């Protein structure tokens, strides 16, 4: 896991920002719509790792935070910045939630309980 040098404080990675334009939960999925190697090479190390990690399949914000060695608060802002320039696609929560599957899962769990 790439670790940022300890003297690089987290606020520097986001220029002090903590808010995001869109709500980003820990389980919000993001993915790279089209991978641009030139764009990636111009990114800062953590951002580049994040961009490359989200390239294969959709990854959750929490997952990316762990893989990139950034705290959740920083990851959110970085993801949000990339999404603002359409480099990263944020999947809205209802896109891939199968309610019938969840209901069946809930019923199954109730039976077990």
């Amino acid at each position: 896991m790439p670790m940022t040098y300890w003297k690089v404080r987290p606020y520097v990675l986001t220029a002090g920002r903590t808010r995001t334009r869109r709500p980003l939960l820990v389980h919000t999925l993001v993915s790279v719509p089209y991978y641009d190697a030139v764009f990636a090479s111009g990114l800062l190390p953590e951002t580049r790792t994040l961009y490359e990690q989200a390239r294969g399949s959709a990854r959750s914000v929490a997952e990316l935070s762990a893989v990139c060695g950034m705290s959740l608060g920083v990851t959110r802002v970085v993801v949000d910045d990339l999404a603002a320039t359409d480099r990263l696609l944020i999947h809205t929560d209802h896109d891939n939630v199968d309610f019938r599957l969840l209901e069946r899962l809930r019923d199954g769990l109730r039976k077990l309980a």
Partner: protein
Amino acid sequence: MRIMASAYQMGSHLEAVEADEQNPDRLERLYRIDHANTRIRRHAENLQVLLGRRVEDANPQTVTLVDVVRAASSAVEHYARIRVGHVVDLAVVEFAADDVIRVLTELLDNATRFSPPTAPVIVSAFITEDGSVLLRIEDAGVGLQPDHLSQLNALLNGRLVTPATLDPAAHLGLAVVAHLAVARQLRVALTNRPSGGATATVLVPGALLCEIPTAAAPAGAPVPPAWPSPSAGIPSPSPGGGAHPWSTPMAAPHDSTNSPTVPLSTLPGPATAQQPAGSLPQRVPTSVRDQSAATTRPPADPGAGSPPEAWPDETAAFAAGVSDARTTSDEGQQR
């Protein structure tokens, strides 16, 4: 000295709290506290420098130039205006990294302080013909008066300037820069740009530079640090007890200064040899898996239901199954 120690402590506490904080408002306030604390640390370190003492670095390590720039920005009051331009992919060696960061901090502080509050300050790093690196800080301020400029450059070159016009208290930061520049043989210069604004340059000699250690590369692959230690269970052919012949090739590719792997591989064997046998094959690379399956089985392994001869085949099959499962689904249950 004590202030520094407290600031270090506070920094690590803050880091832990920041990592857990989910609320943006509270996180922002934490960032402000962290920022103030980082500046306290910077000033405490600068006092040490001005007193002619060495600032002791608790954990010296090779730092990439990008991180040097960002670490320097961390301690600057108006850090949000600093933009990182093109920075060459090199690192500063461990014994000089902290000093380069301090020099850059003071120059960035000057640049942000003496330029319009909305204008960005751009910092970049280029490699030069003779292998040194030129750090460049460009601001959009009004520049400096010519006579003042020459005085400051004389100060930065280590010459003793004590004219009445140069107030020592107003140039504490540059005094720190001058001190460190002489100690580390950095060439620091301030220039005015005809188009407006000033540029500060730091020439970092090639002797203080190195390639970025490979362990810091964004590989993301899990390293098998704890694995060589169960060698205690093997009938070891090595004469010395400590260094096992094939524990060193595993640890060697990782940078020795990035120490996390080193203490782990020198852990006392019995501590990890008591792990449940099933957890071992998980992080063994394919190239050595068969070898490990053939040799790491101590005959007196607890819970050996089958005869010892059957063990290698079973573990090899198990390891193969695990790696198959991993390749097919990342999130699937592994066991």
